[in-house]
Structures are given as C-alpha cells and as structure tokens.
C-alpha cells in the first residue's frame, strides 16, 4: 500500500470542534427517535452544545459545530438533501446569525438562557420562512406559528438552562479532554 502523499494537518482546534460536533450529532440523532406531535417541533438538544461552544470558544467554533451537526446529523439519519435537511440548515443559519448578535449582549444581565431563547426563535423563524417560500407556498403555514413559537420559548429556555449549568462547571474539567487530545497530537 502506498503511503498517502496528502497530509492534512490537524490542529487542536479541529479536534475540539470535532469532539463538540460529535456530541451535537449524537444528541440530534437521539432526538430524531423521539415522536413529535407536529413536524418541526423538537427539543433541539444539539443547540445546548452550540451554546456551550459559543460561550467557551466563540462564534466561529459554534458555527462549525452547528453546521457540522446539520450536515453529518442528516447523513446519519438519511435526510441529507431532503426537505428536512434544508429546513434544519435554514434554521441553523438563522440562529447562528442571531447568536452572532446576541453574544454582544451585556454579560452582566444576559446569560445563555437569553441566547438560547433568541436562537430558538430564529431557528423556527428560518424554518418557517423557508417552508413558506419553498415547500408550502401559502400563508397557511403561519397559522402554525403560535405553536412553533410556544415550543421555541419552552425548549429554548430549558436548553439555555442546561447550557448555563454546563458552563457553570469549572473549566478545568471541560478543558481536560481537548488538552489530552492536544497531547496525543
């Protein structure tokens, strides 16, 4: 066997992002098994990971984790390039855009819960807009908006609380894993 001539240098950043993305993918795959009362209403547990990454490592890493989650998660579930994939992508892009703004909220008054709720609303907003433009070209989709908004508020608040609690864990524990990877690399 010939040795590959292509060497892809892997940085500690890559390992860290891959670890968090793996956690996010695992959560979204697990969540896909849950029955939902209405297509589009789900807890969005993977967003907990995105919030933690945003708070710890900044927006760029959070965007990587979120988008890797959407792409790889859809590959695992077999939804890649299906309508559900584009809805998820649209939601993820919108919530990343909102998170880019929300991270500048004064940290004295606003914590992960605010970011989570705002991102959840952006998520559902992005999905419903794409659905209106592409899948259901009728104003009837907005009829479901109150239900989606209620779910976004509830799950956004819960996910935000979980993220806040994860972030309250001393960084040394959370940092241990990436540091170990760095040593291995």
């Amino acid at each position: 066997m010939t040795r590959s001539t292509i060497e892809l240098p892997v940085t500690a950043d890559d390992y860290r992002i891959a670890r968090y993305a793996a956690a996010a993918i695992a959560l979204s795959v697990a969540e896909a098994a849950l029955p939902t009362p209405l297509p589009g209403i789900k807890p969005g547990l993977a967003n907990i990971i995105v919030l933690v990454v945003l708070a710890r490592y900044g927006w760029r890493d959070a965007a990587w984790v979120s988008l890797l989650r959407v792409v790889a998660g859809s590959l695992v579930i077999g939804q890649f390039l299906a309508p559900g994939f584009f809805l998820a992508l649209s939601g993820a892009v919108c919530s990343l855009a909102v998170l880019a703004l929300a991270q500048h909220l004064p940290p004295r008054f606003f914590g992960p819960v605010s970011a989570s709720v705002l991102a959840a609303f952006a998520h559902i907003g992005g999905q419903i807009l794409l659905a209106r433009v592409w899948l259901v070209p009728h104003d009837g989709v907005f009829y479901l908006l109150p239900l989606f908004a209620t779910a976004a508020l509830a799950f956004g608040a819960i996910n935000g609380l979980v993220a806040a609690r994860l972030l309250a864990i001393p960084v040394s524990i959370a940092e241990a894993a990436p540091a170990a990877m760095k040593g291995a690399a």
Partner: protein
Amino acid sequence: MHTHSLRELLAQAAGEGHAPWRTLLKPGDWALLLAAGVLVAASYPLLWRGGAADRAIVKRDGEVVTELALNVARKYAVTGAIGITLIEVQPGRARVLSDPGPRQYCVQQGWLTRANAVAICAPNHVTLQLAGRGGRNEAYDTLNY
C-alpha cells in the same frame, strides 16, 4: 487518555452541590423570557383570529331570506316547509333556537361562532350560516359537525 465525555459532563451537571437553577438566570434573562412569553401569548389571538364571523345568513330552499349582523342580540323567525324555525343572534354568535324538525340536529348544534360554520335544518328547508369579513383569507370554505 482521558475519557471525559458528554456523559461525564452531564453527570456533573446533574450532581449535587450546584447552585439552584434560578441562579443561572440573570435579570435580563427574566426580562427576555417575560417579553417572549407575552409575544407568544399575543400571537395566538393575532394569528388565529381568521374566521371571526360578523353576520349570519339565513336561507330557505337555498335562497337568502335575510342577513343578520352579529353585533346586536335579536331573534328572527323563518317560516319553512313544515313550520317556523327560530334563529337567535347574540354578539359574535348565532344559533337555531327552535325548529319543527323531528331530530333537532340543527338545534343541538348550539352556538355557531366561526365564519362559514353552518347549521342545516333539512326538514324545514332552512339553513343558518355565518359569514366573515373578507373573502380572501377565510379559514374554511364550510364548517360542519
């Protein structure tokens, strides 16, 4: 090789000795949750108002007998094929108060409140139907139970 993983992080998160949940919320979080809650609650009447009715149309043998505005309470009697059907209107709703039909389906239907809801008193050839404001974005073509 460390095996710190999500499982361990979650176990940590669920563990004892942590601050209670409410301390994880800052003042701005509370304010934002409150504002979002108000907005979400307001979105229900705002987006689900479609289909509010504003008049009742009474027909006999398919022909319009009268149109009653739903803003004042009143009663209206129609003479049909086998007797008199009494229609009652109250602000925002209307019903068939009494009907000579043997099975009383249209009476038992009770108050009609949404646009295009209809009560049919077939034996007496009388129908009561509600109509909404604009024709364009009406929620239903017809409503029956």
